[in-house]
């Protein structure tokens, strides 16, 4: 169990993992859009599996769902093509990919906003409530 002082940034660390996941997922989704006309291309997606319970010491209650910290989460690239494919074997659906890109951008924005607010809170505390 880390000491209380070093846990100040736990939330930021967790958000950082979320941000890097959404950043990498954007690359995967952008690659799908770029392959709109590549014969035989199957679209990919990035799935994240939270770290096992034992590596999440900050969980004070098992019912809490926390994200992973420090790169311990597991990521897998999955085929997201479904059964439908064009005559050339390409299974990219443009609307689906653009919708996922937009949702991913919003999630990334949420994480950055939360990091900003967390930092503002820490700044406020460090400044003795004067900032």
């Amino acid at each position: 169990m880390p000491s209380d002082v070093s846990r100040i940034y736990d939330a930021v660390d967790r958000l950082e993992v979320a941000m890097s996941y959404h950043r990498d997922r954007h690359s995967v989704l952008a690659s799908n859009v770029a392959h709109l006309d590549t014969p035989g291309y199957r679209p990919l997606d990035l799935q994240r599996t939270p770290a096992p319970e034992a590596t999440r010491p900050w969980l004070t209650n098992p019912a809490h769902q926390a994200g992973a910290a420090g790169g311990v989460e597991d990521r897998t690239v999955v085929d997201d093509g479904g059964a439908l494919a064009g005559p050339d074997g390409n299974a990219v659906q443009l609307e689906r990919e653009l919708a996922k890109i937009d949702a991913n951008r919003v999630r990334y924005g949420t994480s950055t906003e939360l990091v900003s607010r967390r930092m503002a809170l820490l700044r406020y505390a460090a400044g003795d409530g004067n900032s």
Partner: protein
Amino acid sequence: MDFFTAMEVSASGLSAQRTRMTVSSSNLANASTTRGVGGGPYQRRDVVLGSVPMNNGGLGVSGVAVQQIATDPNPPRLEYDPGHPDADVDGYVAYPNVNPVEEMVDMITASRAYEAGVTALSTAVSMAERALGIGR
């Protein structure tokens, strides 16, 4: 992996679509060319796209590249026009195997795919800007 990977992937898609647009324009412009570069009527060209691996940290991300600009093997369109200087002994002129409708459809899909690529690219830019704004 960073945002530049996403931007490079999107950029590769954009340049592939631009090539498709160029080739379609060339096909349309040469729809009546009876004297092509190698002699004989112009032959329709088609772009073949393929994946190229990117520096991706095991995520399976790949860019797009033009692998080949293939020549359409379909026979030329014959039109009876005995007065044409390129008419054969029977009076038929061999025109390129270009179908303008097909080219227009190709141009529309290339244009839509280009727009989608621009959207993905500008999303990567806006995400990077959000990250730069942390702590401001």
